[in-house]
């Protein structure tokens, strides 16, 4: 039954710009401060105050627009959007309605394998965030408490066309969007702290039908997992209702992660009449074509480009290139290793296997050493000064104490023994001690060479050069 239905999804993403101060005033934007300690007279909406636009926010917004392939408009206008809500200090939000600064972009998302799908972006506009209502504290009884720390924080709202057709596509779009914004350094993408929020507009219609069905909007979901679950639930719910010949109410719904279902929010409120009009406090925003081109030409490399380059220049596997470009921090770390020691495959292996596994607990920027030190270590391995095994030991020391790999190897005497005059007597002694294994080897059990290698490694604390050991052993046992 369900496959008669087609799902149509559009997304509105609110991304917080990583500026130091607010969009229209100068108080700070740090997350998690004590209530009402990051507030100034402007974002508190006191009588008589006026907005002044943050230059850096405009720059970041334009960078996002360019990164998302939008047309950037040299002229845009701020409007007032009116509604009464206690967390909205002025009774209106300053946003861009009639003339947003960016329109008509797109984002190519991965949809399994190497296939991509182009999702059109309708518009991006700048706006200020509202404060926060706190009302889950039992002690407050029938009251809500308003904290205005977040009020006035700069946001961009990225509105997609309804081009998405499954929860997987939704998540793929969001991940890719978040990745681009993080690459550009315009948004930290932290969903728990609300710097990257998503509203999902969902409707379903019979296959082949042109007109859209009635849509519902899912609001304020703060993880990819919940967004996927909520979207799936909501699609199911709508199909179920339509198949039962019931009507879908156009409304905003919330995701209840405990009950694993969506529920209606504020459904009784009248249809909104936001009474938009151009904010008379803010003349038209002019950005010169030159400024736009300048930002375009100096745009940081985006994830797709970087991945392509990793594939072609460094001959990495598809998988390695994907993992290494997922986070801008990782990609930068990787490239920095290569700047000091160019062995991409080795660097990829060590970074992925030895550092990214623990990245949850210890992100790269919290390590006691940098890319340069790791490069130094890899150089020691490549030049056979130490073995890979000793390399891991050195890495362990770096993680604990930091320092220079060269000096660690030097001071702890970890250098490989690559001198046959030194190794030969030891091996002779080992063979002498294990006559049975030696004769078995000679009898054809050539796999036993590993046994002898193990023995000498034990005796030299892993410092013997394995290649040389192999060579000498073959001579002695041959």
């Amino acid at each position, binding site marked *: 039954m369900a496959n008669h239905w087609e799902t149509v999804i559009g997304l509105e993403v609110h991304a917080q710009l990583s500026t130091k101060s607010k969009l229209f005033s100068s108080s700070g934007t740090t997350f998690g401060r004590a209530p009402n300690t990051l507030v100034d007279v402007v974002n508190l909406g*006191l009588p008589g105050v*006026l907005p002044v636009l943050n230059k850096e926010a405009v720059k970041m917004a334009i960078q996002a627009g360019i990164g998302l392939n939008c047309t950037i408009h040299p002229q845009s206008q701020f409007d007032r959007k009116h509604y009464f809500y206690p967390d909205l200090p002025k*009774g209106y939000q300053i946003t861009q309605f009639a003339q947003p600064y960016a329109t008509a972009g797109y984002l190519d998302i991965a949809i399994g394998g190497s296939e991509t799908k182009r999702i059109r972006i309708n518009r991006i506009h700048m706006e200020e965030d509202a404060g926060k209502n706190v009302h889950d504290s039992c002690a407050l009884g029938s009251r809500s408490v308003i904290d205005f720390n977040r009020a006035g924080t700069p946001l961009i709202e990225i509105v997609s066309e309804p081009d998405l057709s499954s929860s997987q596509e939704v998540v793929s779009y969001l991940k890719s969007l978040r990745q681009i914004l993080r690459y550009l350094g315009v948004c930290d993408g932290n969903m728990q702290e609300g710097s990257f929020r998503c509203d999902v507009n969902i409707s379903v219609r019979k296959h082949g039908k042109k007109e859209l069905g009635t849509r519902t909007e899912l609001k304020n979901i703060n993880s990819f997992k919940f967004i996927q679950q909520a979207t799936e639930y909501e699609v199911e719910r709508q199909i179920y209702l339509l198949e039962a010949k019931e009507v879908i109410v156009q409304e905003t719904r919330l995701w209840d992660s405990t009950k694993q279902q969506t529920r209606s929010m504020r459904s009784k409120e009248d249809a909104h009449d936001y009474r938009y009009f151009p904010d*008379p406090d803010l003349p038209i925003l002019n950005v010169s074509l030159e400024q736009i081109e300048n930002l375009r030409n100096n745009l940081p490399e985006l994830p797709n480009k970087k991945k392509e380059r990793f594939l072609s220049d460094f001959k990495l596997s598809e998988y390695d290139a994907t993992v290494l470009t997922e986070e801008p921090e990782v990609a930068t770390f990787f490239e920095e290793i290569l700047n000091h020691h160019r062995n991409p495959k080795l660097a990829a292996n060590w970074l992925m296997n030895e550092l990214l596994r623990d990245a949850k607990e210890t992100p790269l920027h919290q390590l006691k050493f940098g890319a340069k030190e790791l490069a130094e270590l890899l150089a020691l391995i490549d030049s056979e000064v130490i073995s890979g095994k000793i390399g891991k030991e050195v890495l362990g020391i770096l993680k604990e104490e930091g320092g220079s790999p060269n000096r660690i190897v030097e001071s702890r005497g970890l250098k490989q023994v690559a001198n046959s005059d030194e190794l030969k007597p030891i091996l002779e002694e080992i063979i002498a001690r294990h006559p049975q294994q030696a004769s078995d080897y000679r009898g054809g059990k050539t796999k036993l060479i590993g046994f002898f290698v193990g023995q000498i490694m034990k005796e030299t604390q892993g410092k013997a050069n394995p290649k040389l050991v192999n060579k000498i052993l073959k001579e002695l046992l041959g």
Partner: protein
Amino acid sequence: MVDILEQSLEAACQQIRCGAITSLALVSACLEKVQDTKDSGCFLHVSESSAIQAATQSDQRHKNRAPKSILDGVPIGLKDIFITRDAPTTCASRLLEGYIPPYDSTIVAKLREAGAIILGKLNMDEFAMGSSNEFSAYQPVRNPHNPDKVAGGSSGGSAAAVANHSVFAALGTDTGGSIRQPAAFCGTVGLKPTYGRVSRFGMIAFASSLDQAGPLTRTVRDNAIILQAIAGYDDKDSSSVEQSVPDYLEGIEQGVQNLRVGIPREYFEESLPSAMAQALAKTKKSLEEQGAELIDISLPHSEYGIATYYLLATAEASSNLARFDGVRYGNRVGGDDDLHAMYQNTRSAGFGPEVKRRIMLGTYALSAGYYDAYYLKAQKVRTLICQDFRDAFSQVDVILTPTTPTTAFGMGEQLNDPLAMYLSDIFTVNVNLAGLPAMALPIGFDEDNLPLSCQLIGRPWDESTLLGVARSIEKYGGGSI
């Protein structure tokens, strides 16, 4: 004691500077005058102790020969629309009764910086909405020339306090005539500078694209002195403009030789009271005699000004007043259990009838389905009105009109007919729509001893020419009080 209050602000400044009088003496005399004229309703708050303290400090500076500026030590008054961190700022509304803000408006900061003594906060129509000062939530202001007549509005307290010598100058605001109309009714000089000349930061907004602060004084030169202190770009106000500020006293005595004065026929078609018509004719003649050329001009869209103004101003006001919700400041009414009821009760109890009427009109003009027909239409007509003035100023240097269609009307006369009240702004609103500088200037009295006034309108940023023409009229043409 009273005679020291009879002099101009400029004279008082000079007397303080040469040590003939102290700031404290002036402040004390003004405070006494405020007490004597209490019934006029000019003041909403008298900052007695802080004024005395500031005067003492000013006298010390003069003693040390280190005054902050020419204004150091002179008592002035502020319309209660300007945010002051040490005194209540109510906008003559119940909603803000007792509200003490945590910051100073840019204008107030500049005046303090100049050493001026802020004597108190002056009465006005609530949130600057009104043309008679009867819409103050506290008390009406009475006309100093006849207590049965209104002082005009919305800066009625400012005009009356200057006229009755309680202060040497006052600051008012003008959205559709709110400096010029009360100045005309009370016989004072009132200047609305070019939109963007004076910072709006810390001035409680009525209609943001029209509001502009300016001085009310007894003489033209005094007006120039105050303008000098408050004019200039402010990086806290995105609508203020980076234009150089000239020395306003420098060319003020230069006369009007070869100046082209436009006489817009649309402003003289209305049947003006005969005394007013005569005074205007006399003013024109005097300008001609001094060497100015009178040129008949047309401002064809003038008659659409009131309709345009009342749409734009109320729409912006409905938005600007949305912040008064009883959450962060202001007097909350209700709010025990229901949020919506708290909003409604707070706003319904806090706002007076005229404010509510305008919020209703403005909300309607912006609401779904009406925006294009009302708000957008008005913005387009605004373009036509601006164009009229641009065309006119290609022919003339300054425009002369009546300030008001009548002299001060009686208390209560127009209280119940909002449209009639709105129409009394007919000669002043177009100037605000075009963002131009304009002055109201006394030109004598009618048979009932009520002041008569003319309006001068200038090119953008050209307050200097206005002040020069006004000074000529003051010296040779118009009357004075």
